[in-house]
């Protein structure tokens, strides 16, 4: 097994800079999630690790080996694509054994490896079917088995759950985490879904416009966002950002997660807001209000708490220890 290191990697497509001066150190056996909005360059980073794109500049290492110029098949990296990329004319068995066949592995060893991978992923009864006869979840498991059978140093996964329905996505999330723990391999996982990132990753790398914004554990990134983008990208509903003057002295911005926005007595200090929308989600309630200057504030509370009603005037506040402070450029202040 091996870690992955990207050093000052840049990737240009013509005049478009897809990835800009990107450095990231992924430890051996780590589950690294590359998180960002669509078009931010996270898939390009993954494809450069896999060898499907060549960096314009910078270096990619897998283990101790420089991978620039090394063909994908020689990197010992397996990839699971968003569309699964299964060969539709081959059976599940032929799909899984294809990487071994191309490498000239003996047929008995191939059969044993296919049987092992199929057993791990619950595909033993589906080996003679073709991908067109499988459900989305089964196809996804075949794609995983095809990656697994090679026993690669690094697994690259490009939004592998995005084609599944919500229920199956939740189940497969935990299966993937269990698989990572069982294999002890390095996983690099691309997603735009913050729930996947928070629940699966050992660490999360947040990327915007090809630039790495922050790397850290899910709690680090959630509790101590490096800048306003990370603060507002992670969390549902996103963090509220206010001018500091509403709560304290200074020219900076103040961020408050919706779960820490409190409705208080008007005499206790705070900011007045008019409630515009109350959404009952069962286990919690989202309350959206508007301040006098037009700033929108969202509060999140447990479903059992009493909530204001639409049109009510309320006073909102947040304890100082739950306030995040960002300078005028959006960077976190200590």
């Amino acid at each position, binding site marked *: 097994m091996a870690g992955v290191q990207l050093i000052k990697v840049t990737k240009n497509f013509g005049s478009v800079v897809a990835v800009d001066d990107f450095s990231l150190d992924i430890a051996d056996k780590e589950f690294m999630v590359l998180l960002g909005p669509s078009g931010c360059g996270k898939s390009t980073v993954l494809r450069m690790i*896999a060898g*499907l794109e060549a960096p314009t500049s910078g270096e990619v290492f897998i283990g101790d080996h420089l991978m620039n110029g090394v*063909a*994908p*098949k020689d990197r010992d*990296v*397996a*990839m699971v*694509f*968003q*569309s699964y*990329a299964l*060969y*539709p*004319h*081959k059976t599940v068995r032929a799909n899984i054994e*294809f*990487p071994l066949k*191309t*490498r000239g592995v003996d047929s008995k060893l191939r059969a044993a490896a296919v049987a092992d991978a199929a057993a791990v992923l619950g595909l033993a009864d589906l080996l003679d079917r073709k*991908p*067109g006869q499988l459900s989305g979840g089964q196809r996804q498991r075949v794609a995983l088995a*095809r990656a697994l059978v*090679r026993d690669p140093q690094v697994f690259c996964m490009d939004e592998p759950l995005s084609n599944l329905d919500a229920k199956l996505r939740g189940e497969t999330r935990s299966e993937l985490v269990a698989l990572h723990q069982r294999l002890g391999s390095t996983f690099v996982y691309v997603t735009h879904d913050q729930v996947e990132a928070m629940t699966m990753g050992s660490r999360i790398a947040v990327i915007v416009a090809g630039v790495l914004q922050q790397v850290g554990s899910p709690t680090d990134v959630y509790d101590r966002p490096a800048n306003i983008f990370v603060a507002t990208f992670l969390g549902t509903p996103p963090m509220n950002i206010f001018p500091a003057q509403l709560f304290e002295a200074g020219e900076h911005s103040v961020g408050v997660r919706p779960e820490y926005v409190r409705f208080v007595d008007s005499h206790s200090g705070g900011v007045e807001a008019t409630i515009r929308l109350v959404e009952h989600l069962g286990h919690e309630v989202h309350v959206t209000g508007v301040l006098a200057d037009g700033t929108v504030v969202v509060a999140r509370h447990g479903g059992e708490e009493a909530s204001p009603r639409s049109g009510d005037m309320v006073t909102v506040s947040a304890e100082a220890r739950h306030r995040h402070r960002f300078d005028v450029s959006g960077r976190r202040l200590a």
Partner: protein
Amino acid sequence: MFRRRGDGLIASAMLAPAIAILSIFVVYPLGRAVWLGHLRCDATGRKCRTSGWMQYFDVLRSSDFQHALKVTFVYALLTVPAGLVIGVGLAVLADKQIRGIGFFRTIFSSTVATSVAVASLIWFVLLQPQVGLLPDMLSMFGVMKNPGLLNDAGTALPAIAITSIWANLGFTFIIVTAALQSIPAELFESAMMDGAGGWKRFTNVTIPMLSPTLLFVSVVLVTRAFQAYAEVDLLTKGGPNPERSTETVTYLIYGQTSLVKNDIGLKSTTAVLLFAILLVLSLVQFRSLERRVHYGN
């Protein structure tokens, strides 16, 4: 079958134009040809009498028809596999995102806009022993000395086949190029990750994913080969004689020197037999190749 009585009327009204056109231009002419096929006509072709259906068996047994059928089969064998291989090869080569490839795509597909007559004239010049490029090259490399390819009974059919392959190349190239562009790039990338080199990607991804297109193109090319007429008429007129080495079945039906030209009964019999042979051939192609064809998910 229909949920309401009115549905049947509406369906009939909507199908009527298509049924009318098919009846006038396909069903009636086919039925008429089958019927004409049992007539025997005199040398002038004007006085015809019914002779039962034995004429079909007579034509099948005749040496003229058997010779023409053999020529047609050889012609199809010369043109279809080579046309398919060259067309797919060029389409795969041109399916690259590199600068200037559009120029080559235009060149490769240009023969689709070239009529058989123009293609035949171009190749007539190219194949001439006095001025043609091809005989010059064959002489230069010592393969043949000043060959008149169209005048030699052994080379006339291959020479026409070259014309046909060239003329059909644009069609094959365009259809295969369109099919190539519909193959998801991720399949090729996945094969690359799985360790497949260029040839293995071609055999394991490209060919299986192209299989429905290849079946379609091969059926069309076989049909065109069996209907080859204009190039034969323009380049050799069925000759060189007396071997009649390029007399295809279609030329036997329509050719200026054909024996059956003025006999409406014989012409119809031969045409109906050609139709039946093509029908059987197409069915055999579908039956034998369809198991290897993948029609997506």
